[in-house]
């Protein structure tokens, strides 16, 4: 049973991932753009230039609707760092856009403004 063009990641139930995680990012572990786990991304639908592989296509398919980096990574079953590299490639090629949240300062928690906090509060209240 060897699928040639699998829809999902190559996962064997007994042994887990069949492809070493960083193979899909050509061994790169650093993304060129700043993505966090909660950065929301979406495919633009723009035609992509350059040679993107199956994994890039898989990322694109997963972010047809707005979705976080963490969700893409979880659904592909690869480390978030790998997805960040793939997303960087796609963002550079104009195939993906990210939310415009300011990148967090290293080692610091968010310093949210009052508007954001009130929006979160109102959203939570609606769920009660």
């Amino acid at each position, binding site marked *: 049973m060897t699928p040639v063009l699998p829809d999902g990641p190559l996962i064997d139930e007994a042994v887990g991932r069949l492809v070493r995680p960083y193979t899909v990012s050509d061994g790169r*572990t650093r993304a060129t753009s700043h993505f*966090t*786990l*909660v*950065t*929301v*991304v*979406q*495919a*633009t*639908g*723009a*035609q992509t230039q350059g040679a993107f592989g199956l994994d890039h296509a898989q990322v694109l398919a997963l972010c*047809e609707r*707005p979705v*976080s980096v*963490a*969700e893409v*990574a*979880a*659904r592909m079953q*690869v*480390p*978030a*760092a790998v997805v960040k590299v793939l997303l960087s490639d796609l963002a550079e090629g*104009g195939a993906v*856009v*990210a*939310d*415009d*949240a300011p*990148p*967090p*300062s*290293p*080692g*610091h*928690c*968010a310093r*949210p*403004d*009052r508007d*954001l*906090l*009130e*929006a*979160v*509060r*109102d*959203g*939570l*209240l*609606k*769920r*009660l």
Partner: protein
Amino acid sequence: MASSNDCDPLPAGVLPVGIKVLIAGGFGVGKTTFVNALSEIEPLSTEEILTAVSAATDRLDGVENKATTTVALDFGRITLSPSHVLYLFGTPGQERFWFMWDELSEGALGAVVLADTRRMEHSFAAVDFFERRGIPFVVAVNEFDGAHRYRAEEVRTALDLTQEVPVVLCDARVQSAGIRVLLELIQHLLTTRSSHGSDTDQLLRA
């Protein structure tokens, strides 16, 4: 929305902003239950690489001593509005390493520390971590069946918390209870903002 054949990229700024809240506490304290009860999706798991700078080791070669650890983070999602999506991240288990992990708290709004009154010591590490890092947090006492019920003030004393840190009682299995805990955290953030006084707040109060 543009069709997928459209070559014009989407304009930036239309995407919702992801907001990170950490759900911490020791092993078996109900983190997974808490996230499951609140999440609108089946909770997912992702691996993140956290970097630790080891300060204790000599740097003879001029190369920074950085150790990386891969940790699994379970998370759930709550869509609050078209512009805001809240992500709840359960903190990884190896608590004794947390102090080295800058990325864990990076960009987080704040944290919920779950506590089990039968095993209060399991939450010490989390409380300590957030206090040291200056990350706003609330303590939510998960009222397990059969556990002795303590008052919030008793829990505050047991965990040696300052008066500012809110302590709430909750049932981690119940969605509305979890929402109330998150509301407590947001209220705490709003209050501490006012008392520390950002420019805008001071203007408003003047």
